[in-house]
C-alpha cells in the first residue's frame, strides 16, 4: 500500500513542525531546559554564573556523564545495569588502595586497574545475563549488593585518605585546561567518541536492532547474546573508569562511594531520551540528561531551596520523562494510523 508521505493536507503548521522537531530531538529540548534552569538560577543568584561555579557544575556532572554513556548502551539493548554505582565504589577503592601501597605507581596504571576491576564485574554481569537467560534487572540488582558487600569487606572500615594518593592523580580532579576542567574534558571526549561509534559502526547499530526487537535481530543474523555480553563488559569498564575519576575528584574513598548512583544514572539516561525498553536514544542525550540533573542539584543549593528536594525532583523528573515519551509515542502512532486511513480511502 502506497502512502503519500508529504501530503499537503496533513502537513502541520510551521510552529507545530518546530514543536515536533523539538519533541523528537530530545537533545535540543534537554539543552534548552538546562539553559533555562541555569538562567533562572543566575537571575536569582548571580554568582551561579561565576567561572568557578560553572567549573564546579561541570566537574560535578562529569562522573555521572561517564556512567550514563555505559548505561545508555545497556538500556538500548533492552537491558539495564543497576550495578554501576557499586562497580564505581569498588574501582575507586581498589585504585586508592593501590596508590596507598605503591605511591610511585604511574597515574595511567591506576586508571587501568580501575577499568580492569570494572571489566571483571561487567564480565560477571554479562555472563550471568547471557548464559542463564535471566532478566538483567534481577541479576544486576543482585550484583549491586554482592559487589558493594565485597567492597565493604575490602574496605573493612578503613578509608583511603588524600595524603596517600599522588598529586598528579588528584590534579585530574581540579586542574583545568583553557578554564575547562580536565574531568569534563575526559567525559566529553568519551561521550563524543562513543556517540560517534553508536551512530556509525555496525556492531553498535546492532545494539539498537536488539533493543527494538530481539527476535527480529536474531533472525536477521545479529549475534544477540555476544553483543549483549559485550555491552555489559563495556558498561562495567566505563563504570571502572568513572571510579578513577570519582577518586580524583573526592580524594577520599570509603565503602559508600557511589552508593545509590545507579538510580540517578538510570534517571539521567531516561530523562536524556533513551527509551527504557530499548531501541532508541543517544549517548549525547543521556549525557545532557546527566548535566540537567546535576544542574538542578546545584541550583537547589544556589537558590537556597533545601538540598533535601534533590532526590524527590530526580524521581519526579524520571516519571515525567517516561510519561512524556509514552505520550509522544501514542501521538505519533495515532498520526500514523490517520495517515494510513487516508491512504486507504
Amino acid at each position, binding site marked *: 500500500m502506497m502512502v503519500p508521505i508529504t501530503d499537503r493536507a496533513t502537513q502541520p503548521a510551521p510552529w507545530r513542525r518546530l514543536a515536533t522537531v523539538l519533541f523528537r530531538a530530545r537533545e535540543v529540548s534537554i539543552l534548552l531546559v538546562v539553559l533555562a534552569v541555569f538562567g533562572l538560577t543566575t537571575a536569582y543568584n548571580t554568582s551561579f554564573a561565576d567561572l568557578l561555579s560553572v567549573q564546579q557544575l561541570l566537574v560535578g556532572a562529569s562522573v555521572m556523564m561517564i556512567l550514563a554513556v555505559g548505561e545508555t548502551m545497556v538500556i538500548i539493548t533492552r537491558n539495564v545495569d543497576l550495578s554501576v554505582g557499586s562497580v564505581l565504589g569498588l574501582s575507586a577503592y581498589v585504585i586508592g588502595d593501590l596508590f596507598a601501597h605503591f605511591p610511585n605507581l604511574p597515574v595511567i596504571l591506576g586508571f587501568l586497574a580501575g577499568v580492569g576491576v570494572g571489566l571483571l564485574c561487567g564480565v560477571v554481569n554479562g555472563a550471568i545475563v547471557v548464559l542463564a537467560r535471566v532478566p538483567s534487572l534481577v541479576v544486576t540488582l543482585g550484583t549491586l549488593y554482592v559487589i558493594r*558487600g565485597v567492597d565493604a569487606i575490602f574496605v573493612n572500615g578503613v578509608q583511603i585518605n588524600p595524603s596517600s594518593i599522588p598529586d598528579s592523580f588528584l590534579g585530574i580532579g581540579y586542574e583545568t585546561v583553557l578554564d575547562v576542567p580536565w574531568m569534563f574534558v575526559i567525559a566529553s571526549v568519551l561521550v563524543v567518541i562513543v556517540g560517534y561509534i553508536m551512530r556509525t559502526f555496525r556492531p553498535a547499530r546492532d545494539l539498537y536492532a536488539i533493543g527494538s526487537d530481539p527476535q527480529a535481530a536474531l533472525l536477521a543474523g545479529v549475534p544477540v547474546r555476544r553483543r549483549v555480553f559485550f555491552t555489559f563488559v563495556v558498561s562495567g569498564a566505563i563504570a571502572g573508569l568513572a571510579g578513577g575519576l570519582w577518586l580524583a575528584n573526592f580524594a577520599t574513598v570509603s565503602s559508600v562511594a557511589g552508593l545509590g548512583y545507579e538510580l540517578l544514572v538510570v534517571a539521567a539516561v531516561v530523562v536524556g531520551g533513551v527509551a527504557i525498553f530499548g531501541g532508541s536514544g543517544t549517548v549525547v542525550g543521556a549525557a545532557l540528561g546527566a548535566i540537567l540533573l546535576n544542574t538542578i542539584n546545584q541550583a537547589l543549593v544556589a537558590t537556597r531551596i533545601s538540598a*533535601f*528536594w534533590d532526590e524527590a525532583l530526580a*524521581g519526579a523528573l*524520571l516519571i515525567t520523562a517516561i510519561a512524556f515519551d509514552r505520550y509522544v509515542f501514542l501521538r505519533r502512532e495515532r498520526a500514523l494510523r490517520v495517515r494510513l486511513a487516508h491512504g486507504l480511502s
Partner: protein
Amino acid sequence: MAFPETKGTETSAGPTAAEVADQERVLAANTAGHGWRWQSLGRWEVALVGFVIATILYGAAESHYFLSGANFFDFGLNIGPIALMALPLTFIVMTGEIDLSVASTLGLASSLLGYLFEHGWPLPVAIVTVLVMGVITGSFNGILVTRLGLPSLAVTIGTLTLYRGIAEIILGSSSVTGFPNAYDTVGTHPIPHTQFTWTLGIFLVLAIVFGVVLHATPLGRSMVAIGLNKETAFFSGIRVKRIKLLLYTLSGVICAAAGVLWTFQYATSRYDAGTGLELDVVTVVLFGGISIFGGRGTIVGVMMAVCVLGGIQSALTLINVSAQAQEVVTGCLLIVSVVLPNSGATIGQLRARWARRAGVP
C-alpha cells in the same frame, strides 16, 4: 516486565523448548485433574524445604544461641517488615509486574508518622493518615502502570527515588523519637504468650489470607492467568488493569503499615528508614519460587524463603558478620533464585544444539 531477551516471546515468535515443555506439562495437568500442581511446581518448594533445614542446621552449628526463643524474637524483628512487604509484591510479581518502591514507601510512612506525631496529632489518627498515604502512593504507582501504560520497572524506580525524596523533604536530617511506651513495646515485647514479634505474627495471619486468595479464589487465579498470558486473560474477561491497580494499592497500604510497625519497633522515625530493603523483599519473593515472568509460584514458597533469608541473616549476625558483608549473601541468593530455575532450560537447549551438531556432519 518486558525483557524479551529472555522471555515474553510467546506472542511474537515460536515457543522455545522450555515453553513447549511447560505447555505439555500444563496440558497433561489439565487432563490428569487435581493434584497436578504438586508435580509441576512442587520441585522448587521441595528444594526450599532443604534450604530451610540446611539454614537451621548451619545456624545451630554456628551458635548455641541460634535456636533460643530470644533469638527467634530478634529474627522476627529483622525479617518481619521484609516478610510483610513481600506478600503484596508476591501478587504483583505473579501478574508479571514489579514494585521496587516498597522500601521507600516504608520510609515515607515512617517519616510522615514522625512528622504528624511531632505536630501533636493523636497517634491513632496519625496511623490512619499514614495508611491513607499508603493508598495514595500505591495507587499512584498503579495508575501510572495501568492507565498510562508505563513500564512498572521504570515507574517504580522513579517512585523509589520520589517517595524517599518526599520523606527527606518532610523530615530532613532530623529524627523523631518519644513515642508512647504502649506503642514502642512493638520492638521490645513479643505478642503475649509467644515469641513472635508483631510484624511476624501479622505476617503469618496475612500469609494465610494471601495464600487462600491466591490459590483458592477467582481473584487469585485471575492474577496467575494474567501472569501466564496477559492477552489471553484479557480476552477471557479478566479485568487486567483493575486487578493490577488493586494490587499496587494493596502494596502501598501494607508497606505503609510496615512503616508504622518499623517506626515503633525502632522507636524512631527517620527519612532513611529501610533504605535498600527492596533487595531483601525482591529476594524473598523470587527465592520463594515466584517466577519473575509471572504466573508461577506459591505463598508457601515465599514463607519458606522468609525463613531461609531471615535464618541466614540471623546466623551471620550472631557470628558478627557486618550488615554490608551480609549483602553478598543476599545478592547471591537473589541471583541463584533466578538462575537455578532457568538453568534446566538452558542445559536442555545446549544439549539440543550439541545433538544437532553431532547429527549434521
